[in-house]
């Protein structure tokens, strides 16, 4: 056990070091892709706390992604909030409030009903974003016109891409590492085990004295906060937020990333994000009929490796170790 843990730690450190080096070694466009992927990591980790650990499939997680982005853009435009830390906290707070409300209603249901209900909420939020033009900018969305302060430091003298590729990149990397470690602590804690127990067998879990609904709600809220923080980080990269982020296709993308990487493993979704981003870039530049490939990939994953890439890697690893 200890050996595996230390091995894991070793690999994690190498991965972090690699990620830290990316802006220096990779071509600019791939730095951009890596940065986008980094911002999506909290999103998929949050989604997976709900899906992989609690067993609730949310088809409306775009709601919280958009919530984080709109909170950020709204505060920057209307109150010229500059500190990124404050913006992240504000996004988390709004996700906490909305997540509590939506979650309270949704967690009463499970399985397909939960998926349908979250889908409906996502779509209602989407329509709200389009209709309340004075606050949300309607379909045009809101633009972020200036760069935030990072830890109180002003990097505004940098050109856009230099800002994104240097200070902002490392800032996001730092935040993502903190959030990932926190999530890891959460899921391996007593709380995380309770969630798993609920997923495996909710009746048994209830018999063990776990308040299922409350735990599902906690899980929902944590998930919402993570997703929203991801949105807050993403907002500065896109510097333009639109309602499409709460549309069901975006929610579907989050599900796809998670499945691709593998929801059974804590690190699976993170792999999923990177592979998805690279794959999408590759396929979209190669053929215009990229949906066929995506659909086929989805089917193949579901049929052959429901555990996603991480499961596939583990299988290969075991195979070679066994042989």
């Amino acid at each position, binding site marked *: 056990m200890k050996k595996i843990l230390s091995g894991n730690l070793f690999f994690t450190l190498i991965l972090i070091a690699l990620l830290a080096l990316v802006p220096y070694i990779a071509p600019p466009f791939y730095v951009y892709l890596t940065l986008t992927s980094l911002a999506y990591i909290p999103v998929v980790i949050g989604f997976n706390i709900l899906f992989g650990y609690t067993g609730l499939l949310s088809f409306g997680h775009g709601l919280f992604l958009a919530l984080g982005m709109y909170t950020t853009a709204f505060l920057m435009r209307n109150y010229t909030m500059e500190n990124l830390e404050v913006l992240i906290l504000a996004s988390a707070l709004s996700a906490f409030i909305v997540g509590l409300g939506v979650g309270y209603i949704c967690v009463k249901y499970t399985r397909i009903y939960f998926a349908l209900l979250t889908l409906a909420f996502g779509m209602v939020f989407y329509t709200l974003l389009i209709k309340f033009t004075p606050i949300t900018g309607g379909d045009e969305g809101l633009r972020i016109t200036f760069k935030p302060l990072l830890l109180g430091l002003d990097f505004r003298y940098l050109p856009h891409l230099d800002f994104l590729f240097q200070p902002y990149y490392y800032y996001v990397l730092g935040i993502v590492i903190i959030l990932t470690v926190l999530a890891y602590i959460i899921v391996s804690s007593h709380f995380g085990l309770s969630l798993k127990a609920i997923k495996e067998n909710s009746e048994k879990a209830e018999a063990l004295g776990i308040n299922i609904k409350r735990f599902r709600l906690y899980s929902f809220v944590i998930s919402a906060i993570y997703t929203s923080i991801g949105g807050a980080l993403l907002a500065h990269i896109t510097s333009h937020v639109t309602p499409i982020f709460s549309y069901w296709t975006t929610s579907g993308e989050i599900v796809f990333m998670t499945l691709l990487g593998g929801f059974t493993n804590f690190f699976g979704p993170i792999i999923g994000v990177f592979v998805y981003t690279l794959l999408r870039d590759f396929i979209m530049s190669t053929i215009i009929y990229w949906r066929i490939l995506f*659909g086929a990939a989805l089917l193949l994953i579901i049929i052959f490796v429901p555990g996603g890439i991480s499961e596939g890697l583990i299988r290969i690893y075991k195979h070679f170790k066994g042989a």
Partner: protein
Amino acid sequence: MALLEPSTITILVLTGIFSSSIIFLISAGLQIVFGIQRILNLTVGSFYAIGAYVGITFINFFLKMGFSVVYGLLFLILAGLSLSFLGPTIERGVLNFVYKKEEAFQLLATFGLVLIFEDMIKLIWGSYPQISDFGILTYGEFRFLDTSFPVYYFLVIISAFLIAFLLEFFIKKTRQGKKMRSVADDIEMSEGLGVKVRNIYILSFTIGTVLGTLAGALIIPVTAAVLGMGIEAIVLAFAVVVIAGLGSMRGALLASLIVGLLQAFITFIFPELTTFVIYLIVIAVLLIKPTGLMGKEI
């Protein structure tokens, strides 16, 4: 302007029922597959779109061959039925592998199929809207209270009710229907009494497919076939089955009527609310009675 004159009400009611008939066919396709296979089959939206595209190709071909437009409706129905081969192909080729997996995966598998079909349509028919040479006024017009309606509207409404009746008859009276009901109730016990569940799965999925393709074929004299029509249809059908209760056929009929009429009236009275209302009803139904108006307790 008087808010609701008799002629206004006539227009809204008739249009509402017309929309309901199409929505019903699609949602019936969802229901039958959910009832038997317990899979929320998003692909039915793609079948709707394919039905429309193939319907256009079909009818244009026959009209070019020199057949009279009077047979148009027949050709459309033929087009819808001819696509039934998609049912067994997809059921055996894809769904067969996901029955034992979690619900989420089954849903995502059909989502994957939707993506594939969307691009296949683009590959075959391109991205321009496709239009049939079969005009809606072929069967004339019907005048009522100083407004007029194409007779075709009534034909579609009648066809939908006929199909609903046939479905009911099939499920209630025929041997295959009895087997289907037994499978919907309890797969294992049906197997233990000699029901070949595989065949029933193929049958129900094929019926679901044909309902979708028929709906698509029937709509084309009224509108054009465009990319994305399948996804829009599935969203609406989704709302209908949630309101109806998953798996309930009569519920689907009732809920389609509700949704179709409501849409027509809301659009007239509170146009800004149109997009909202359906989702709000879905949320309300899920909160008050999650099994829907006529759904079985699960």
